[in-house]
């Protein structure tokens, strides 16, 4: 155990029972071991396969193909289309969540009766299963009997089987589910703005817009950015909603392509390579997120 920093704390206690070092190791190491065995080891295992032409559905001999999978994937315009669709979805859905969620937070950030109840009710969608609730949105969107078309007077407008509309339809459902997330974080940010700043602005006869852009926005920005990065990561990974709701090529996000390649076309080697490409993108975003979180926490 060389290289570990000296433990803080009490050496007298260490004399009785387990030492602090033992406790720390017994408490932490099983978790690390568990995660290495069930998260890291499988990834190393599939890294190996990503250099082969392995297909899990047949018993053909496995050939080493070097970087061929990666080369072909990165040169495949269809994969780039999947990434473009994903980016489009991320922008529409996270953008919508920020507008709706932050707007809701601004509305809720005042004294209103039953505020706690209303906030909790608004948060219900985000706690529910995307797959199961997404399935029901298909009924709501149905061109012949859906309540959305009926409510908006759209006749038999087709949402989900229309290639141009499907992505937006799925994104609307995603906004419905996750705008409350942005709302929750924004509310926390808004309530932390000291009220004396607003009082000072009122004394100076600052306009509403001025107060909003010079006081509210800068102070809420850090927490809002956390919400945006978090939702970006999740939207990038989206699988459940688009998979359940739409079979359109215009909603085929990278996770769905990966699923099809691995478990429908059984191109195991190639899908492992694609998984690695996705993994690198996700780790990059996660890294930005954690760096930013630590920066915010230090303040």
């Amino acid at each position: 155990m060389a290289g570990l920093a000296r433990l803080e704390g009490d050496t007298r206690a260490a004399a009785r029972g387990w030492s602090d070092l033992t406790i720390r190791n017994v408490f932490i190491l099983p978790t690390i071991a568990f995660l290495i065995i069930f998260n890291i080891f499988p990834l190393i295992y599939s890294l190996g396969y990503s250099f082969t032409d392995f297909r899990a559905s047949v018993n053909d001999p496995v050939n080493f193909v070097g970087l061929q999978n990666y080369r072909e994937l990165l040169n495949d315009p269809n994969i780039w289309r999947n990434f473009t669709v994903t980016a489009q979805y991320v922008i529409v859905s996270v953008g919508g969540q920020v507008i709706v969620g932050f707007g809701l937070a601004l509305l809720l950030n005042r004294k209103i009766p039953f505020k706690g109840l209303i906030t909790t009710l608004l948060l219900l969608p985000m706690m529910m299963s995307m797959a199961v609730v997404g399935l029901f949105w298909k009924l709501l969107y149905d061109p012949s009997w859906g309540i959305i078309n009926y409510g908006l007077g759209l006749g038999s407008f087709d949402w989900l089987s229309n290639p141009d509309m499907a992505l937006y339809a799925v994104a609307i459902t995603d906004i419905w589910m996750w705008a409350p997330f942005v709302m929750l974080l924004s509310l926390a940010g808004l309530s932390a703005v000291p009220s004396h700043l607003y009082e000072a602005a009122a004394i100076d006869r600052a306009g509403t817009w001025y107060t909003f852009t010079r006081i509210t926005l800068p102070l809420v920005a850090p927490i809002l950015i956390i919400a945006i990065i978090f939702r970006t990561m999740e939207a990038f990974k989206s699988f459940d909603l688009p998979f359940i709701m739409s079979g359109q090529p215009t909603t085929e996000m990278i996770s769905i392509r990966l699923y099809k390649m691995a478990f429908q076309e059984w191109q195991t080697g190639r899908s492992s390579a694609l998984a690695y490409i996705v993994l690198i993108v996700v780790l990059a975003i996660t890294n930005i997120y954690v760096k930013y979180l630590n920066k915010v926490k230090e303040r």
Partner: protein
Amino acid sequence: MAVVTSSGRRVTNRIAIAAILVITIIFLAPIYWIASTAFKPRQLATSVPPTVLFQPEVTPFVKLFTKRVQLRGPVDPEVYDAAPWWEQAIYDGGERVLRVGDSVQLSAYPNRFMNSLIVAITSTFLAVAMGTLTAYGFSRFKMKGEDDLLFFILSTRMLPPVVVAIPMFLMYRVFGMTDTHLGLIILYTAFNLSFAVWLMKGFMDEIPKEYEEAALVDGYTRLQSFFKIVLPEATTGIAATAVFSFIFAWNEYAFALIMTNRRAQTAPPFIPAQVGSGLTDWTVIAAGTFLFLVPVAIFTFALRGHLLRGVTFGAIRK
């Protein structure tokens, strides 16, 4: 001037409250639609215009739990009269309940619901137990490269499920673990463990070290002080972490879709698979969905004080 401003503000306030009410109603409409469809007579589920007011009935739930076949020809009136009320409701819909001898044949739904319970409860227990210990370790003892380790722990949670599922599927196939409870439990435990560590670390950091130090002075060992001082103080945090972990495992779709197909299948992949092309009975789907969503709705209310923390991995505390 002051009067004008305050009355102006009052008007803005009224408009804001009205807007909130309208938005809340719009937000809850899809949930209301699921709940109401679960109690509708079948022909009203897809009626045009949509039916809002109707005589609620529990037939969808009877259908949800039973195996049925289409009736060929009318029912014998004697059989009909002798049947219990819920079976008569099925006859009225032009179907009959399948029986083996005297016992009613159950649909797959209760089994899938039980699978969801088994997998969610077990994985939650494991993740929270290990996560609590690990969080305490990280919270109280300094460690070289602690931030990197914590990032490592978090990053395992951030990967898209399908990325993790490909190698896990291959390994499970080797060990015969596809379509088993254990397979899903391991996956969900690994996913929730990272979450539990992050969330619990926040709760642990909030428990003053002085409590334990006082206990150590009183002759407790470090381990005793953990169990007798720290754990009781952390109860709320542990409960919140457990509920969040449970909800994650309960709702999870992608892993369950890939790793299970029958014996260990949970409700999320099962419910959508019931929607076939053509004549889907949406009231039954709604009934299944309704029962599946009830626990989550209850938990959301129970958790309302901790939601902010939970959804940000403990990053933002209030």
